[in-house]
């Protein structure tokens, strides 16, 4: 049970968890304590002094953001004394501010504006100071305008906490400024253009670069959804105006270490309106792809499917929703009656892994063990997980990195175990056994010729024993071997490149008899590709159907191309790597005449004489609700997984990268790499 304390805030009695600060406690009581520099989840730094409150028994006011609740504390948040200080602080800030709320893009969500309104400050009572600092607008993602900066340090702290360390204060006193190292443009720093700093900035000092006159906060419709561009499956909040997406922010809860988006998820949406977006069905006429109607396309497809019969093969991507996956599964079994259905999952995992992978919340783990994963925000390999791990470490969690070679996370790990991962796992288990931990009998049988127990191994075992809730994040190929460790203690979660691999596997799209490689290498009379798969050349087949959102290499080689709605144009659910069901909400209409995967499958089925049931939420919940059952496994890598996560993620996202401002990023990094 969590310990609670009783406090009284502005006359309200509340019970709150022990150890939290006064701002969070007041929030529980439904009282807002004004603050500018506080960031939920992080230690209060006391920079802005806006959060001053009075505590009975103390002479001077205290800073609420770094004062912890104590039992029977009596807090007053609105005394004349503290209100006066707050007004003074805002007054001072206004004296160094451009005060152009009428055209300022942040108007409506700016905290300075909000508090100026609250304290009835139209103007500063001090002489206004103008700085005239140059604006950094040399990249297409983020505009930095230091004239608006109130030096709250929120951007500095998010950027540091997630390990990118781009921003910091320069100079001191009134001349201080938040800048990159040596005040260079962002692209000349280690900036990844994740935009975390933009989400953190309370004023107009950090802003999406293209926001000028694209609407302000109150003009947007907001949709909570999920980014499907990689296995992190980040929660997003989409702002829409006049049917178009204006911006995307992180949708994760304030204070969660998962509050992060990479540049792909945040800025890749311009690709939705790119020329290579498919807007109508296409069919091959005299060697060339020509536009056609849905009716015609569906006629052709159903005739071809009938002809091909059992000699049909369907390959799906694992970046489709559960609803699409279930419908596809039904389509294959009820209409086509084929077993030849599989997905990209077999490229990087044994689908069984998803039945055993656990559920856990990284926010509550005090020890994270990262095995065989090369996470990187800079190379955008599961960047949100990289950021979350780094944030947990900065909030006090321990980190053990078990990896053949050095990885980006090595620099922040408490312990790095290099060399063969399997050997390291075996050694840790042996060390745990020596310290008296109970080891599964079967595991013990699999343990053989353990290499020497080094000091680091002993230390790692000690950390595991001392941890309250260890979390193992592992690459799918090492999942089985690492299961033995989780059997002793901790949760184990497989981490992989595609957003809904877990959902697609659990909804029943499994390669029962054949792998992706076998499917693409064998000859079928008809090959049906659903979604974005990393194929460039046309496999050997008589008839190729490609159902995708963009005209890519494989679509160019198809006989029929069916346009699909993108994830931002679809509703549905996915199951993320940590086993959570996440909801997508359609933010904008599907492009042109494109339709969702499930609509297309249902229409073809209908044409072929079967009405497919619509997937319902309860069946998804049921399919998702597998009890993870880990058991002792031989200490071996799963064989035949040939994939390099960084290349794979890049290939999957190539259409999005090449058709949006992300291309700038790719080019800028290539230039940097040459240097």
């Amino acid at each position: 049970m969590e310990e609670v304390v009783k406090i009284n805030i502005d006359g309200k009695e509340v019970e709150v968890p022990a150890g939290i600060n006064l701002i969070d406690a007041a929030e529980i009581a439904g009282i807002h304590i004004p603050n500018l520099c506080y960031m939920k989840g992080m230690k209060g730094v006391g920079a802005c002094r806006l959060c001053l409150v009075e505590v009975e028994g103390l002479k001077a006011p205290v800073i609420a953001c770094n004062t912890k609740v104590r039992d029977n504390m009596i807090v007053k948040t609105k005394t004349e004394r503290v209100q006066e200080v707050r007004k003074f602080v805002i007054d001072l800030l206004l004296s160094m501010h451009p005060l152009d709320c009428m055209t300022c893009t942040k108007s409506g969500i700016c905290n300075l504006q909000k508090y100026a309104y609250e304290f009835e400050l139209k103007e500063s009572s001090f002489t206004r100071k103008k700085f005239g600092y140059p604006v950094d607008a040399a990249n297409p993602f983020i505009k930095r305008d230091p004239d608006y900066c109130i030096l709250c340090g929120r951007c500095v702290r998010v950027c540091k906490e997630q390990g990118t360390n781009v921003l910091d204060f320069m100079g001191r006193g009134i001349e201080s400024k938040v800048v990159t190292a040596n005040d260079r443009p962002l692209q000349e720093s280690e900036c990844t253009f994740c935009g975390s700093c933009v989400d953190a900035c309370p004023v107009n000092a950090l802003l999406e670069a293209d926001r000028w006159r694209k609407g302000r906060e109150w003009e947007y419709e907001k949709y909570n959804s999920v980014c499907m561009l990689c296995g992190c499956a980040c929660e997003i909040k989409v702002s829409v105006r006049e049917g178009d997406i204006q911006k995307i922010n992180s949708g994760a809860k304030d204070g969660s270490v998962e509050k992060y988006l990479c540049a792909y998820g945040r800025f890749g949406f311009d690709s939705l309106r790119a020329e290579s977006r498919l807007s109508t069905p296409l069919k091959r006429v005299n060697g060339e792809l020509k536009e056609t109607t849905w009716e015609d396309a569906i006629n052709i497809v159903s005739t071809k499917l009938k002809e091909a019969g059992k000699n049909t093969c369907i390959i799906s991507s694992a970046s489709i929703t559960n609803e699409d996956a279930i419908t596809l599964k039904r389509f294959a079994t009820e209409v086509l009656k084929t077993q030849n259905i599989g997905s990209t999952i077999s490229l990087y995992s044994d689908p069984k892994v998803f039945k055993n992978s656990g559920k856990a919340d990284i926010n509550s783990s005090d020890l994270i063990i990262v095995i065989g994963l090369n996470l990187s925000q800079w190379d955008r390999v599961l960047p949100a997980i990289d950021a979350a791990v780094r944030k947990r470490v900065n909030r006090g969690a321990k980190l053990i990195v078990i990896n053949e070679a050095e990885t980006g996370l090595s620099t922040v790990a408490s312990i790095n175990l290099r060399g063969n991962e399997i050997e390291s796992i075996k050694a840790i288990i042996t060390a745990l056994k020596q310290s008296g931990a109970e080891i599964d009998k079967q595991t013990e049988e699999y343990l053989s010729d353990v290499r020497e127990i080094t000091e680091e191994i002993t230390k790692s075992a000690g950390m595991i024993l001392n941890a309250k809730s260890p979390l193992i994040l592992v690459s799918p190929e090492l999942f089985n071997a690492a299961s033995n460790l989780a059997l002793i203690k901790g949760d184990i979660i497989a981490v992989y490149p595609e957003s809904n691999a877990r959902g697609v596997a659990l909804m029943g799209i499994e390669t029962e008899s054949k792998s992706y490689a076998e499917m693409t290498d064998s000859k079928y009379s008809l090959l049906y590709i659903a979604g974005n798969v990393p194929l460039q050349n046309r496999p050997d087949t008589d008839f190729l159907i490609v159902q995708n959102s963009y005209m890519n290499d494989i679509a160019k080689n198809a006989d029929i191309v069916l346009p699909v709605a993108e994830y931002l144009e679809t509703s549905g659910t996915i199951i993320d790597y940590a086993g959570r069901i996440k909801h997508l909400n359609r933010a904008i209409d599907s492009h042109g005449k494109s339709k969702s995967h499930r609509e297309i499958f249902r229409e073809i089925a209908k044409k072929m004489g079967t009405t497919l049931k619509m997937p319902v939420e309860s069946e998804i919940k049921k399919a998702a609700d597998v009890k993870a059952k880990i058991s002792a496994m031989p200490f071996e890598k799963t064989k035949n997984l040939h994939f390099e996560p960084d290349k794979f993620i890049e290939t999957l996202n190539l259409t999005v990268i090449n058709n949006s401002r992300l291309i700038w990023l790719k080019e800028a990094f290539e230039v940097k790499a040459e240097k």
Partner: protein
Amino acid sequence: MKVEEIDVDNEVGEVSEILSQNEKTKGILIHVLQQIQEDMGYLPDEVLRKLSKKLNIPLSEIYSVASFYKMFHFKPRGKKVVRVCLGTACYVRGSKKVLNMLENEFGIKSGDTTEDLTMTLETVGCVGCCGLAPVATINDNVVGEIIGNKKLEKLIDDIRE
């Protein structure tokens, strides 16, 4: 000081054992920066980058720490560091004109250094010789009563010398 050769424990000295690695590297940062500036006259970007790797302190943080102190410079310094006093007494007696003249003559703005590294031009508040206003200093030597063309020409000659 060669960044590659920095031995953190040695720099920290006796208290080395009670400090974490992080505290140690942060502790010696200022000292190391001072050494680098002494050797090279300023803090070159490449050297700070190496230092960032070596001490495992983010580059942005190194710049942040260094920029807190006026004594650190991020650009090469001229052979002559000229400071024109903009204190009240000097200002009243026309030191702004002296500054503008130097800016025009050398084609740089206050705060910058000429390309050939002849001089760095800066401004200061009162240097404590108000009786001699308007005042400038060349490498900490005071030049007073810079009034009239003759005095100005002399000042330029002294800088060029």
